[in-house]
């Protein structure tokens, strides 16, 4: 679904990532870890076409990112749900409207989807907060709203960047359960996190592969972590 083939990336200085090869197979569950500043967010951006590799090839659903025009990139974002590290909501819209935003910009809407939205809000436990504005949400609520927005288009792949970044343990377990549930429904999941505890508890629920960025390269992390 998403393939990185000998990819390198640099923001202009030295190479941040180099010689990366990664294949996200349908239905797989991956963790991406590494110290802060290692390039996890950068790698995820390469995976959803926000960045173009400075060397090598990135392919989204078989199409080389370098050959995709802007509209193709936009359309691919409807098939890849992204939970961004900083969430990024439109603060003047309600939580429900923010969650439905991908539908709005895709020009979709209507009774059926309305029901979907309510179910989704219930699933992430935000039904009672649907009319709140994003700045009124707690950290955990924001992360769950971001997850709801990432999955509303029924994407095949979900990329989550530090989805448990600033929430307590209880909430991070709850978010993890949601992601595991999505994986059981057949979605491909990639979670970037530096929270090793989260990875450990995930391993009891799902068969997950752990990748670590170190020395600009991607390595399969050992079972011991």
């Amino acid at each position, binding site marked *: 679904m998403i393939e990185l083939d000998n990819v390198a990336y640099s923001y202009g200085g030295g190479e941040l990532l180099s010689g990366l090869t990664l294949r996200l197979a349908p239905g797989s569950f991956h963790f991406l870890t590494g110290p802060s500043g290692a390039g996890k967010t950068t790698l995820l951006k390469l995976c959803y076409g926000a960045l173009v590799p400075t060397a090598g090839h990135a392919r989204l659903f078989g199409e080389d990112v370098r050959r995709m025009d*802007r509209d193709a990139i936009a359309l691919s974002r409807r098939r890849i749900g992204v939970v961004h590290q900083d969430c990024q909501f439109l603060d003047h819209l309600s939580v429900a409207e923010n969650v439905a*935003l*991908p539908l709005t*910009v*895709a*020009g979709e809407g209507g009774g059926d989807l309305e029901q979907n939205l309510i179910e989704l809000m219930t699933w992430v436990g935000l039904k009672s907060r649907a009319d709140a504005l994003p700045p009124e949400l707690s950290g955990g609520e924001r992360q769950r709203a971001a997850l709801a927005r990432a999955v509303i288009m029924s994407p095949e792949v979900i990329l989550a960047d530090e989805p448990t970044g600033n929430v307590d343990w209880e909430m991070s377990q709850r978010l993890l359960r949601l992601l595991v549930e999505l994986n059981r429904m057949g979605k491909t999941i990639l979670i970037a996190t530096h929270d090793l505890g989260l990875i450990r508890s995930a391993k009891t629920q799902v068969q997950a592969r752990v990748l670590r960025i170190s020395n600009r390269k991607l390595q399969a992390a050992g079972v011991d972590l």
Partner: protein
Amino acid sequence: MRLLQQTPGVASARALSEQEQQALLEPWFGPDLPLADLPVPQLIEIIEEGDGFDGAGLRLRLQAEVPGAVLDDHTRWRRPLVAAAGKLRLLGAVSILLIAGAVAAMVTLAANAALAANAQVIAVLRLVGATDGFIARAFVRRFTLRALGGATLGALAGAGALLLMPSAGETAGFLTGLSFVGWHWVFPLLVPLLTAAVAFAATAIAARRVLGDLR
């Protein structure tokens, strides 16, 4: 009279009646003027036709045959005024061009500012899968409608002001006749449409530029 009627270029020559003379003098001397008691000369109205008459020749002949007659050619003092009116019209056309340019610049600046202020919104829209077309349309529509509304109000106010101007009647003459006549009223209707078109183009260009920086 006969002499005037025989002069080539004269369409008609007609002696003004006493009432008409009185009406002409009234603004200056008041209505109670006893015209009969005053040595007011008899006025004869001459209306030109074709290329007009030979003023100098007519004057000479009048002098020979009717020594008291004076020929007063109105076109002589009217000509600079007609020229001034023409200049005024040119000035108007140039100002319209300048105003159109200023509107385009203003709308472009406003669109750029609004798009910059909304850069965050645009980035989010882009992140959740909005195409450039969707984003540009959303902003272009808003700006075009706004420009259309503003220009319509402006055009209505302008047309209203012109309606209040003295009408270009016979007495007012061509200098005060700034109002539109007949089909010329189409022009103020064009103003909002042209402004909207300018706003549309300016916003579309500005939106594309902001989006170009964003993947």
